[in-house]
């Protein structure tokens, strides 16, 4: 059991490195001049970095889930190839962030082996998470991008604090709900056939709802707001097992979002662009329309790596705006077609499946809720941006985890992966040990 998990991980990393090599080879072949062995060299570098991480995991977390790391490495490979194909210098940054992300990944595993300490500092962690969320609105360091306040600039350092605060807030919610889930269940009353949470414990739900509405107004980002609230509802459902709480929460979110969409101008604009992109096809609606055309243009198998058009030929004007961040998914669909797109979505689905599996086998409530929350927030982020570029929901500026260009996103998501693997290692280690007398008592 022990070595077989890590052996499967090692075997799975080989096709990932091969895919990266093939991707680069295809991009080079398209550029014509440099077919040579450069793609093999990049592939070898990538494999070496993954191998080093694998050996670290073999020593530190021998029982952890074997497929999470290869799946996330595959997403990174997608990101590196696509970003390289857009701009070589951006890809160099991206590769550096990948390595930096893995260093933080290793440090997290090193220093948070006993991740239960997180529970003791939950209020500190929650405060840091909220501060990070509000930082982009602080004068001097905050930055406004396309009307949303998402970035922070501290001297030469620029980052998107929401990427880190999502982890902090999930840790807090997992710890809070672990302790209060019983009172939420026991005090519930049925009113007109609907199970309502007890009134005095309704407070936390209102606080989280208020916080996500506050984000909608002050950070003006529907995507992050949706991401946080949906992760909260996922946790609430797992903690209480009451689907009615989820329905009530969704109704509250819809009502709140609808109210602010009709009163806050920036949010209103985003919704208008989503519903009626043709009202302003060369201005506000340009990005979403081009994103959809690019995807339609890909067909079943796509145009091939490096063959999609990002700028209008002969000019520098963008044909696909923000191709390296917001619309990178559309570019992947353009170049790899419907099959490539389904492949990418399958990767996210498999990651979600592995994550929930970890929650299933984890031994204690905090681990279960933490694994659920981290998996949920990661998957919902992917949904928010893929849904955005395919016009399922209004397009907002969150990143496609591990694929989009952006250091904060890559580093924060590797920390998230480290936490998942820590939980997984403990859960699988306990699962192979005999359960003892509790089984005889009928306890689970």
């Amino acid at each position: 059991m022990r070595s077989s998990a890590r052996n499967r991980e090692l075997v799975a990393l080989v096709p990932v490195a091969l895919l990266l090599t093939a991707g680069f080879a295809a991009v080079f072949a398209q550029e014509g001049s440099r077919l040579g062995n450069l793609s093999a060299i990049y592939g070898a570098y990538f494999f070496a970095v993954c191998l080093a991480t694998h050996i670290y995991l073999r020593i530190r977390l021998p029982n952890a889930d074997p497929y999470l790391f290869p799946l996330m490495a595959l997403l990174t490979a997608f990101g590196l190839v696509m970003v390289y194909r857009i701009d070589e210098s951006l890809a160099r940054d991206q590769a550096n962030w990948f390595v930096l992300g893995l260093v933080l990944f290793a440090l997290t595993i090193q220093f948070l082996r006993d991740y239960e300490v997180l529970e003791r500092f939950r209020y500190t962690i929650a405060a840091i998470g909220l501060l990070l969320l509000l930082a982009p609105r602080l004068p001097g360091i905050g930055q406004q991008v396309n009307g949303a306040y998402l970035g922070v600039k501290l001297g030469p350092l620029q980052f998107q604090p929401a990427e880190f605060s999502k982890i902090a807030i999930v840790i807090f919610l997992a710890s809070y709900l672990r302790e209060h889930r019983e009172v939420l269940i026991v005090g519930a009353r049925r009113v007109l056939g609907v199970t309502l949470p007890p009134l005095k414990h309704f407070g936390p739900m209102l606080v989280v709802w208020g916080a996500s509405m506050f984000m909608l107004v002050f950070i003006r980002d529907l995507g992050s707001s949706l991401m946080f609230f949906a992760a909260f509802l996922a946790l609430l459902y797992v903690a209480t097992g009451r689907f009615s709480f989820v329905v009530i929460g969704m109704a509250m979110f819809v009502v709140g979002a609808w109210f602010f969409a009709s009163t806050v101008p920036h949010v209103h604009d985003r919704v208008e662009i989503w519903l009626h992109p043709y009202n302003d096809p060369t201005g506000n609606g340009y990005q979403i329309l081009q994103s959809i055309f690019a995807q339609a243009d890909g067909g079943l198998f796509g145009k091939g790596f490096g063959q999609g058009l990002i700028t209008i030929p002969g000019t520098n004007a963008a044909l696909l705006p923000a191709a390296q961040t917001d619309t990178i998914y559309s570019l992947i669909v353009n170049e790899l077609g419907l099959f490539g797109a389904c492949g990418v979505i399958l990767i996210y689905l498999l990651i979600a499946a592995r994550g929930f599996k970890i929650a299933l086998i984890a031994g204690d409530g905090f681990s279960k809720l933490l694994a659920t929350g981290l998996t949920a927030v990661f998957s919902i982020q992917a949904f928010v941006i893929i849904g955005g570029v395919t016009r399922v929901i209004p397009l907002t500026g969150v990143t496609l985890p591990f694929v989009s260009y952006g250091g904060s996103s890559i580093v924060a998501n590797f920390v998230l992966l480290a936490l998942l693997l820590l939980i997984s290692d403990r859960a699988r280690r306990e699962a192979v040990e005999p359960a003892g007398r509790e089984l005889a008592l009928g306890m689970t």
Partner: protein
Amino acid sequence: MAYDPISVALKFGFLAVLYLFLLVIARSAFKDLRRTTSPAPDATGFHAAPAYAEAPRGVDAWLVVDRGGGLEPDQRFDLIGGLSIGRSKDSDVQIEDRYASSLHARVFERGGRYFVEDMNSTNGTLLNGATLKGEAELIDGDTVQIGDTEFRLEAS
């Protein structure tokens, strides 16, 4: 340019390897699902149905949950053979409590009388509200508190 054979081969090769890779991982996920012999009582295995242990003959004392600990109130544990209480999975009574140690306390029978003993826990054990030092005898109605979790002894 558009139909360079190398590019086309690489594109389809890429998709083929990608799908093979995902297929292998998905298959292993299905295997995992099949391997789970005892299905969890619900989607998460979190809300285990209260396990009211059938009282074996000869038992005349139980540890009964009053509140907290991630256990159902009024859940009963028979005291035959003694019980260990703690946060670890190996405990007979596994409690989810921030203030509990992995092996926190034990309750046992000796010569027809029942005792509770604190196992050098970090945050201590309260017997009827007073800090427990070492071991002490338990009688019907005594309460044992560990962190936010409370038990009482029921003896007949």
